[in-house]
Every structure is written in structure tokens, then in C-alpha cells.
């Protein structure tokens, strides 16, 4: 197929899917949002914006970053790299520069998955292109910020991340918004982890009470590749649905997903992680922590074992601090072969009085004991978290605890 035909094919398929509801999550009427506009002039980033970006791990101190990308609404604003062998550009730039990129574009994620991918496809969504050349390793994390400014509009993002053979990438993506008005974020991310490559991808969401969020992430992992995904959302979000999916198609490919969710009243979060173990000896670990102070969380997890010696473990823990909070844990395992080894554990509960009193017996006050326990619940030992995230967790623990007492 010629390039032109391919583009036409993507467009056609997107067109057919533009009304197709997603498999999960509340349906969203795209008509309620303004069509994405081309901004006349590039927006300015104010000090206030910078503060918001800092909350999601995006710093101006780029000396501690191997690369930086910032997109405001639908317009890439900054893309720079500070390290040889590591490429950071906008997806549109990359498509123009690399004809071969067609082999990756909409190849991990199907453009007609649902109305959200279709919308991104129809609007030629821009986003970041990050690539590590063979055997190159990021010294510092690469930071990418997706910033939603225009009210009542749709932000379409399409990211492509390629870790060539034997390379290593560490990426922090922070998503946030400047306003409390309704807005819809659609984010498509396609990851390609080549032989022996390793990618740590940390996504921090800090939306607002009226934001609707629909990320679409697919990861393809080849032989001995490693993909680590950390997803953190500690603040109110009207409606969030995402179900990132990794295809461990290579031998001994590894996928690890960690998610930390805090749902205040008025939030609805449907977050899962799905791994298909298609390569011999491939393995997966999915860990999620969900805490509600009144919001609703659906914590999904799926591991499919379809190859010899595939191993996977799912762990899902929920903590309900207030009445009105709902946690629905749905861990799923599917094995289609002798010799797969899959397991899961799920638990939902409240703060155990026995544990609180245990700490009190050592002289901690009730508040201190409770916050130590909530803190411990949320602080999964995960690699690659930006430094200021701990402070944020501290803050969230404090507010959750106040609501609890």
C-alpha cells in the first residue's frame, strides 16, 4: 500500500468508529465539546502553569532531564533533547522526518478501537515521539507534559515511543489542566520495546473535578524486553477510564504495572492493566492500590498466559475510608496452556483498628497512626517516581485522613 492509501485507510476506519462506545467506562458524547481549534499563536506558560506542571513531575530544571516535551491542548510547544542517541520530537515532526515511522503509526493501537482513538485519528492528533537508538540509555528521565488549557474542548494526543534494541528509556509524563471547567483528554500511546530494551514509564495525572480522561495505551515487547508502567492519580477526576495493554510477544518479555489511585467523592475511575503473555517464559506483575474517600474505583487486572512457562501475578488492594466510597476489584486470569503459572490476590477493607492501636501502643497518636497506615498503603515500592511525588502523597494522606476522621 502506498503512503497515501495507508493514510486514507486509517482515516476511513476512524470515520467508521467515531460513534463506537468504548468497551469500558461511561459513554461520552463528543458533541458536548468544542472541536479542537488551531491556536492562532502559541500560548505562553505562566509561573502558575509551571507550578501546576511541577505537581506532575515536570521541572524547569532541565539539567536533571535527558529531554523535555510540552504540549498545550493540541499544539506541541517544546521538544528538546539533551542526550545524544535519545530523540524527542513531536509526532508530526517525526512522521515527516522518518518515512519508516508509518510501520509504527497506529500499529500497536487500532485506530478504530473506539470513538476516542477514532477522534485522535481523524484529527491527526499530535503528541510526542521518543526514541532511544540501539544500546543508548537515558541518564536522566525524559519529561513530557500534556497540558489542557482550553475549556470545554478536546485534547487529542498521539504518542509513539520506540526503544531500540538494548536501549533504556525512563519517561515521566505529567498531565494536568489550568482550569476547573469540563474538558476531555484523549491520549493514545504506542510503545515498541525491542530486544533487550527497557522502558520505565511513569504517568502522573492531576486533572480537575470536571475533566474526562480517556488514555489509550498499547505496548509491544520483544525478546527480553522490559516495560514498567507506573500510573498515579491522587486527585479528583470526574471520569477516568483506561486499560493499558501490553503484548509480551517476545521470549522472556516482562511487563510490570503499578497503579496508585485516590478517589474523592465525585470521582469515577475505571483503571486496569492487561498483559498478554504470548512469548515463551514471558512474565507479568500487576499491582494496584485504590483508596476512596467517597469516589468510585473499578480496579481491573487481566493476565492471559498463552505460552510455555508464562508467569504472572496480579495484586489488587482497596481501602475504603468513607461510606459512599465504592471499590470494585476485577482481577482476571486466563490460561490456555499447560505450564503457565498465574495467580492473583485481591482485598478490600478499611483501616484495621488493631493496626492503629498497635502503633498507638508505641506512643503514636491516633492521627499519626492512621496516616502512617494510609501512607504505607499508597507507597508501593516502585522505581522511577519523581522526587516531589512523595510530598504529594503526604498531602493526599493528610486530606484523606481529615475526611476520614
Amino acid at each position, binding site marked *: 500500500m502506498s503512503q497515501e492509501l495507508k493514510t486514507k485507510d486509517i482515516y476511513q476506519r476512524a470515520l467508521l468508529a467515531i460513534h463506537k462506545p468504548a468497551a469500558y467506562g461511561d459513554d461520552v458524547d463528543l458533541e458536548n465539546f468544542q472541536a479542537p481549534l488551531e491556536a492562532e499563536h502559541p500560548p505562553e506558560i505562566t509561573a502558575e502553569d509551571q507550578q501546576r506542571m511541577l505537581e506532575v513531575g515536570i521541572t524547569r530544571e532541565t539539567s536533571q532531564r535527558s529531554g523535555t516535551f510540552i504540549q498545550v491542548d493540541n499544539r506541541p510547544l517544546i521538544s528538546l533533547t539533551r542526550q545524544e542517541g535519545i530523540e524527542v520530537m513531536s509526532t508530526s515532526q517525526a512522521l515527516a522526518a522518518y518515512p519508516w515511522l508509518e510501520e509504527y503509526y497506529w500499529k500497536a493501537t487500532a485506530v478504530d478501537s473506539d470513538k476516542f482513538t477514532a477522534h485522535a485519528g481523524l484529527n491527526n492528533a499530535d503528541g510526542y515521539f521518543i526514541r532511544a537508538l540501539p544500546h543508548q540509555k537515558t541518564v536522566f528521565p525524559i519529561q513530557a507534559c500534556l497540558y489542557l488549557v482550553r475549556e470545554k474542548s478536546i485534547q487529542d494526543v498521539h504518542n509513539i515511543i520506540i526503544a531500540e534494541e538494548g536501549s533504556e528509556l525512563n519517561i515521566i509524563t505529567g498531565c494536568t489542566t489550568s482550569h476547573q471547567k469540563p474538558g476531555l483528554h484523549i491520549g493514545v500511546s504506542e510503545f515498541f520495546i525491542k530486544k533487550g530494551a527497557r522502558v520505565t514509564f511513569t504517568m502522573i495525572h492531576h486533572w480537575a473535578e470536571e475533566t474526562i480522561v480517556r488514555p489509550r495505551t498499547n505496548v509491544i515487547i520483544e525478546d527480553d524486553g522490559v516495560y514498567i508502567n507506573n500510573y498515579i492519580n491522587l486527585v479528583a477526576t470526574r471520569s477516568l477510564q483506561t486499560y493499558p495493554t501490553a503484548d509480551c510477544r517476545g521470549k522472556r518479555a516482562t511487563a510490570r504495572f503499578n497503579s496508585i489511585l485516590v478517589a474523592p467523592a465525585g470521582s469515577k475511575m475505571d483503571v486496569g492493566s492487561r498483559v498478554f503473555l504470548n512469548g515463551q517464559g514471558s512474565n507479568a506483575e500487576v499491582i494496584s492500590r485504590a483508596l476512596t474517600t467517597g469516589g468510585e474505583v473499578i480496579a481491573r487486572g487481566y493476565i492471559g498466559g498463552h505460552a510455555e512457562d508464562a508467569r504472572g501475578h496480579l495484586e489488587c488492594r482497596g481501602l475504603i475510608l468513607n461510606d459512599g466510597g465504592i471499590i470494585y476489584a476485577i482481577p482476571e486470569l486466563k490460561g490456555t496452556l499447560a505450564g503457565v503459572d498465574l495467580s492473583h490476590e485481591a482485598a478490600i477493607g478499611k483501616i484495621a483498628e488493631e493496626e492503629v*492501636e*498497635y502503633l*498507638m501502643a508505641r506512643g503514636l497518636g491516633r492521627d499519626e497512626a492512621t496516616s502512617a497506615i494510609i501512607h504505607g498503603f499508597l507507597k508501593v515500592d516502585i522505581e522511577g517516581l519523581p522526587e516531589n511525588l512523595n510530598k504529594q502523597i503526604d498531602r493526599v494522606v493528610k486530606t484523606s485522613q481529615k475526611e476520614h476522621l
Partner: protein
Amino acid sequence: MNLLEIKGLRVSIEGREILHGVDLEIGYGETKVIFGPNGSGKTTLLSTIAGFSHYRVTEGEIIFKGQDITSLPMDERARLGIGLAFQRPPVVRGVKTRELVGTIIQKRGGTEDVGSLAQKANLGNFLDRDINLGFSGGEVKRSELLQLLAQRPDLVLLDEPESGVDLENVALIGSLINELLEKTHPIKNRTKSGLIISHTGYILDYVNADSGYVMYDGKIICQGNPIEILKSIKTMGYQGCLKCLKN
């Protein structure tokens, strides 16, 4: 004045009376041991002194350092100088042993190094683990004593510190207890007091107690020399204690 005085203590759990009037006192620098069959109320007594909400005092009083603490919140009791090593402590997921021990030291205004305290309890490699998660029986006991070393209570309550501990480690447990109780100090200089529950009495091979009690069905039925009491329990069982009581 004694460090601890318990008078006519009746305690219920979920409406059922477990302790039927217990009197007990412990002087400054004194160590006492309580024997008694399973289910006789030993853990209930210690937990009530520590102030767990599950244990309801219906009658009687607990006086500590001259103050009535019967209805004092448990963290205040801890700050007053009461420390308890649990028989079966809960797992606290996500809270690291290092964090907790550090917090305890800090609360007391101490300056000890967490690492060297942990070395003492042979738990140097456990500091980055969640409290009690996957600990063996002996490790749980040593971790309890480590926390008390950090807390340095004036009244050391030990609930079966040797149960589930292998022989090699009983000596270590014993020496940690002796440190907590200042047993190496001359008798007249000791300020720390202890109340030790022992089902088996093995711990008396390592730790000296000044006197012993026998608890039976929620009451203290006998008091005397701990070694003598232990010997008679070993030869005649608790039934022997009951017979002795009748005569």
C-alpha cells in the same frame, strides 16, 4: 508507692467477663512473672493495662505512677512509660520497621541510631521490611523487643516473649529483656519494672523474676517465689494449684 497498682479489676470482652477482679502491684525496679493455662486471661490483663479499646473495664482501677490511667487513651499510656511486647502483633503493610523504630525513638526525644539498635536484636536486615510481614515466630518477638528498646518504657509488659522462639534465639531474647529491665545495673539502681507472661517458664532460665503469680480463670490464685511456683506447676500441673487453693 508502687509503679503499678491494680485493684479489683474486672474486664469484659464483647459483654463477656474475662477478668473477675484482679489485684496486682509492681514496685519500681521489680520484675514479676505470670503463669497460667491458655485462656486464663493473661493476655487480657496485659492488653487492658496497655489500654486496648476492645477490653472494657467494668470495675476496679489501674494506677500507674500514682495516676489513675483506667480510662486514659493508649498513646498517652505509652508516653507515660508503658510498653508492651505483643504475643501476636498484627502485620502493618507498607509501614517499614525502620520507619516505625525511628518514629518511636523520635517521639521519646532519643538519639539512638536505628541501625545499631536493630543489630542488637539481630534484625539488621529487617529494617526495610513491612512490620511483621512474613516474619517467623522468633523474628516477631525480636522485632517487638526492638520496638521496646526504642521506646524504653518504665513498665515493660511482655506477653510470652519466648513462645515460638528456637533455642538459639532464646538467649538473645533473654539478654534483650535484661537490657530493657536494667538487670545489669545494681539492684538498688534499677528503675525499670517488668511484668512477664510465660506459659512455659523457659524464660526464667535467662531472666530473673522477683516473684510470680498464677492466673486461673480470670483470677490470680497464687503468689510466691517464681521458681517454686514453676516447679509445682511442672510436677502437679495447674490442677495442683487448684487443690492447694482448696486446702
